[in-house]
């Protein structure tokens, strides 16, 4: 087993080479990312804790990361949940990314 599996942060790289470093447990809110990192087989990703998203632009990926933090913050929370704002221009691509990432 690789020692990297217990690191706290993961790196998500967008198609235009932007790197987003977020906490591992927050990243796991995305079903796809979770699979990638905890698959029984030793894929590249789980070895290096890095995922290249060749089809997702930085703008979208950034929004996704924001959403993941948002979800973590307000999941099972009783306080009033503020709305998550989505810019309509990126809405369609964001939708596809969400579908891809299962989150």
């Amino acid at each position, binding site marked *: 087993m690789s020692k990297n599996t217990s690191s706290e942060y993961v790196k998500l790289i967008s198609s235009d080479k932007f790197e987003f470093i977020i906490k591992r447990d927050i990243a796991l809110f995305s079903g796809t990312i979770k699979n*990638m990192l905890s698959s029984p087989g030793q*894929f590249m990703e789980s070895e290096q804790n890095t995922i290249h998203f060749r089809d997702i632009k930085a703008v979208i990926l950034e929004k996704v990361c924001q959403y993941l933090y948002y979800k973590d913050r307000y999941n099972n929370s009783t306080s009033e949940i503020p709305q998550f704002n989505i810019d309509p221009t990126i809405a369609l691509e964001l939708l596809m990314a969400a579908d891809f990432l299962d989150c």
Partner: protein
Amino acid sequence: MSRRFQNAADSQFSDNWDRLAQAIREIHRKNASILSFEELYRNAYNMVLHKNGDKLYNGVREVITQHLEEVAKDQVVPAFPVSGASSSQANSANGAGGANFLKVLKSVWEDHTTCMLMIRDILMYMDRVYAKSANVPLVYELGLELFRDTIVRSTIYPIQNHLLDVLLNQILLERENEIIDRSNIKASMDMLLELTDTSAKDSVYATDFEGRFLETSAEYYRVEGQMLVGECDAPEYMKKVEKRLNEEEQRVRHYLSQTTEPKIRSIVEEELISKHLKTVIEMENSGLIPMLRNEKMDDLGRMYKLFGRVIKGHEEMKTAISNYIRELGKDINETVSNSATTATAGESHTTGDRQTGTSVAIRWVQDVLDLKDKFDKVQNLALSNDKAFQTAFNEAFEFFINKNLKSPEFISLFIDDNLKKGLKGKTEEEVDNVLDKTITLFRFIGEKDVFERYYKQHLAKRLLLGRSVSDDAERGMIGKLKIECGYQFTTKLEGMFNDMRISTDTMTDFKDYLEKSALERPKLDLSVTVLTSTFWPMNLSASPRCNFPAEITKACDTFQRFYLARHSGRRLTWQSNMGSADIRATFNARKHDINVSTYQMVILLMFNDLPPSQSLSYETIKGESDIPEADLKRNLQSLACAKYKILVKEPKGKEIEPGDKFYFNSDFTCQLQRIKIQTVASKVETEGERKDTREKVEEARKHQTEAAIVRIMKDRKTMDHNLLIAEVTKQLQPRFVPNPAMIKKRIEALIEREYLERAPGDRRVYNYLA
């Protein structure tokens, strides 16, 4: 334009697909680390997005199938165990080969599942979006199905046969006490459990393996059962069966599916227990009966537990034990009839006959009590107080106890004996214990009213002759009877006690009266017990005559006057056959105090005014005393022919004949100062007396039956014949079991006396006539 677009899309698809197919192959080769999850995931995602989900799915299926076929050929088939002489033989070489095969299979399976998990992960999008809508199994399930069809149920290679053979062989080896590798087998079972058979909607374990397992097991245990029954005795056999049952339970727990547990258990129970129930029970020298005889509680307990598992088990045991109890009971009953015949064959001397009679009775009761103790112990220690068995025991006891027609009498005699002497020196607890045991016997008697009659007679004798050892014990016994049978049973008995108590008070008052009054004191010390006639079982109309000497008559009259002055409206009748007297007799050697019956006192007093050398003839004595003949003979025998010869008879002999002469025996000597002349207190009844008692019982029953019928009819006003009979039987049951024919006769008698009538429309229905 669209065609070009399509071609481009197609080529992109085939590119993507190739890459995916290659990736899958790498996964199979355990080279996943060189792959990028994201790329593969994205490929699949794109394919599904472009509506090529089906092509993807089928492609995946093909790749996996191909891989599995290779695996089958390259890894599984070479590992086939070399079959020895016969695959069903427990062959260790076969065992080792088999174990190896299982190991290979296990590793193949584990590899496959791991790969499938990875493949599922990268194809998750396809699962999520395509599989559900196309109604095909998810990737992982697909993988299982493919494994099932390509390897386990391979049509090309006989993998399944080998697998099943090896598994069954391994189990066989373990049953024959060889050590096998359980983890291997467990892995195979788990694999079979995970694979499902789509048509049966159950696991492959259930469809392919379980059936054969149960079949072969049944066969195995059938043979085992027959062999063991031939070789072992009953306790050994049961121990072995227990062992096998535990083994199989362990086996299931360790490496089979829990669902199999009840099935294999019932097979073992069927083959080893159900089929051999009777054989084991009836095994000579070691079966159920010898176990009971030798009180082997452990073995009995084991049998109870084992046989409890199968339906008929306890039934058989109960029947066998019940029959055994009846056998033993019959033997006990026969000792009675045997000693009865020897007694009648021997001397017909009434006292002798009665003596053996009592001891026979007491022995009978003691034997039955011992028998009950024995089976109570069995019940307690071996049968965990099973109620059904208790019922069977009780029935058996009831059966043989009531077969002995004298049982009510015997039991009463036993209690009589205990209350007279047996309980001396016992603590209160022990006394209670003995009485309790007798009550349990009492419960078994069907004819409780017969018992009541005897008990009353015996109690009367005890009270009047002062033979009771302990008043407390007597009252204790009555208390227990009251609990058993209710108030009515014991009113008369308590009445008798009361009479005794009142009499003592009366006597005290009488003594005071004599002190104070100016009357001439009687020359003798008179002690009177007044009995209320309804309570006591005497036949009063036949109050025996007896001529008392003058002083005695005077004393009696004094008392009578005293008593009637206190209680008006009562009539006193003197019962001379029940009293006793203390006489101071002067012999040549010294004086003795003799305790005799009233009759004997009357006889002896006749010698008072006689010179010593003169005798009285039998006729004279009879004439003067007016004592009935049978009693007279008996009493003369006790005085002249028994141990202490107060009188001398001429001619010598045991029998009293007319013409005998009697002398006062002045030469009489004895060590003791006080002597008691045994009057023959009647013990076991002679045949004549029994018939008498029987008749009285029948009379009483007739009245009770009629009373019951009238009571019921008055309540219900109208009733059907069968119902009436049932109701009457129920009411009379605590006392005795009435004969339906007898009830019918009573109904007819009541109809004649116009208490009831037949319903005008229906002959089977009766109406109450007010």
